[in-house]
């Protein structure tokens, strides 16, 4: 059977035919495993720019002769989710743009990307506010840290919060970004409502210098375990046991979580590590990723040489289309060898917030099983 773009190529290629091709169609065109990116407009060249590790990061679209329609067909495995932009080249200058034919956007601290949903990928329903879900509340707290000075921390309190109860504590690196780009607040509301996780208190930290502080920095471990968590446990009804205390982060935030747990073994009984930047070397001490990674490499190399059970349960996730997939896959057996309970999940996605968003249900509900198993109404 002809692909949609082939019908256009083989047809009369009149303006009416082109208009008919675009009418009532969603873009990019998903036909089985084939996904066709399309651009309409005059240009010298159009390039697909994406961050799928393993494919050329820039690929040229082909013009349908005699029209202003450009296309590129890629084979994407089922369940894939790809963030991209289109580079429109005019007068020798390339400009990166979102795909105006595709309404799907993913936002991150650097702006927004268009998103292609491969066959079988669906946006999880639990990321959207649900009418029956009672939302939690987000407060802010200012902590005068001896280590870092004044820091702002956002605190999530679940719906029906009661001071007479004891809640688990989840500490989230880059929490503000998780709230903004990964719908963390709504996801917590929904998962709690669905009994998939217990009501919990969540502390969302942010750092003005994360690449330094998160890279196995003793000051950061001290900030979390000597200052933030004890203060929260004094101020809020928190179940102060390692089993109910989780540290979480993505990318460098995952390094911060793992290195803090390593520096304070047994303190955090739960870890949630997403697309960790766990660079290491098998020989030498310089990784190809550059000097910012040097302290990470030193840390991971040390951990690989002498793995220790620093926590009880560790959830690790990574996108198959990330350059960090090798590092994360390598981490898992090493963590498992220590006796820790480790769950590893991969997704056909990249190093981005919506990948991390989509894995939160599985990760949080595994680390903190909610009362779902106990409730029979």
């Amino acid at each position: 059977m002809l692909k949609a773009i082939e019908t256009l190529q083989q047809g009369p290629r009149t303006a009416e035919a082109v208009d008919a091709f675009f009418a009532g169609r969603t873009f990019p065109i998903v036909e089985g495993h084939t996904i066709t990116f399309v651009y309409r407009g005059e240009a010298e060249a159009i390039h697909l720019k994406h961050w799928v590790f393993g494919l050329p990061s820039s690929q040229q679209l082909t013009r349908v002769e005699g029209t202003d329609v450009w296309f590129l067909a890629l084979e994407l495995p089922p369940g894939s989710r790809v963030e991209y932009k289109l580079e429109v080249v005019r007068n020798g200058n390339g400009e990166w743009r979102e795909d105006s034919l595709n309404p799907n956007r993913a936002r991150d601290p650097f702006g927004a990307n268009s998103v292609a949903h491969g066959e079988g990928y669906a946006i999880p329903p639990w990321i959207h506010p649900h009418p029956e879900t009672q939302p939690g509340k987000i407060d802010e707290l200012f902590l005068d840290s001896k280590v870092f000075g004044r820091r702002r921390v956002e605190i999530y309190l679940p719906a029906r919060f009661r001071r007479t109860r004891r809640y688990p504590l989840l500490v989230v690196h880059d929490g503000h970004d998780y709230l903004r780009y990964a719908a963390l607040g709504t996801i917590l509301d929904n998962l709690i409502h669905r009994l998939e996780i217990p009501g919990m208190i969540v502390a969302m930290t942010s750092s003005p210098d994360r690449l330094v502080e998160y890279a196995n920095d003793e000051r950061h471990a001290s900030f979390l375990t000597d200052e933030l968590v004890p203060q929260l446990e004094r101020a809020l009804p928190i179940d102060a046991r390692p089993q109910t205390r989780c540290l979480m982060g993505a990318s460098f935030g995952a390094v911060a979580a793992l290195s803090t747990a390593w520096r304070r073994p047994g303190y955090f009984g739960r870890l949630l590590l997403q697309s960790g930047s766990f660079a290491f070397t098998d020989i030498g001490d310089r990784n190809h990723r550059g000097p910012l990674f040097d302290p990470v490499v030193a840390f991971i190399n040390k951990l690989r040489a002498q793995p220790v059970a620093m926590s009880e349960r560790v959830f690790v996730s990574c996108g198959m289309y990330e350059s960090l997939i090798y590092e994360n896959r390598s981490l898992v057996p090493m963590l498992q060898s220590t006796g820790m309970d480790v769950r590893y999940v991969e997704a056909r996605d990249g190093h981005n917030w919506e990948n991390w968003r989509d894995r939160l249900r599985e990760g949080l509900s595994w680390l903190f099983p909610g009362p779902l198993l106990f409730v029979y109404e």
Partner: protein
Amino acid sequence: MGQLTTNIVLLGPQQPSPDVGDALQEAGVKGPVALITAGWQEREAEDQALVEHLRVKTVNLKLHARSEQVFAADKELSAAAKARQTRLKAVNDFYRIRLDHAFEAAHAISVRHVDPELLAEEQHESVEALKQLDGDHLERCKVSHDHFVESWQPNQRPAVAKHREEIGKILDDSEAIVVMGGHVVSLLNRMKLFDVIGLAKKQRWFAAAGGAMLLTERVFLFHDFPPHGTGIAEVLDHGFGLVKSLVVLPDFCHRIDSSDRGGIARFVQRIAPATCVAMDPGGRVFVEGGLVRRALCHRLGADGSVEEGWTGC
């Protein structure tokens, strides 16, 4: 544990709409009825719609609220109960780790290409290993509960005794006891704390969903569609044992993968010789002398089959 009660009706889930009132009517219960909604935890008192549905005079025993009062008044008992729960949680965690590994082992064995007869033997051994784990876990729970009761004699403590007296009086005036579901640990603990089974003498029981699970000898937690991975059923604790040799799984259509014949078969073999019934809304099991006399529910078979409309015969 518990005396044989001659008149028990087990019911399926009461969501989205209850039918326990219909069951009372069918049984000719005129009231008053003692109601237990402790499984609803803090929402225990939000029973107005249910009471209207029951259509007979109803008194909520308010076991959850009473337990809060007990723990506020008796700090020693409160601390001991919390310590017991913490220990039980840890024991449950370890049981769960062993269970996961036993399932992995069973799976690893089941995919071996060996003589079918040997494989069948090995699968039997795998089920026996699960039974052993379940049995050991139940025994550890029992030891923990017995130790708590022997050490703290909750019935003798004034804070508990006062409430038991009140509960006893309500029960004496009640024709039936209705136990709703909810959080089965909360429900189990509250009913145990006040020894409601010991106080109940002649009343008929109408127990729905989680409440029905607790009246049997063993309470199994299950969900084939958990938010992560694959669900593995686990035994929570002993139930009150008013219903013998029966395992109840409410909310069949939402919680059990009926297409997984292997999973159902393994579970039924694991709980054998008990009968395993799954209940959807409208389901009923009628019990006399601790044994099933009549039913309208699904019976799960040791071959993984689901017998719909099982009548108890």
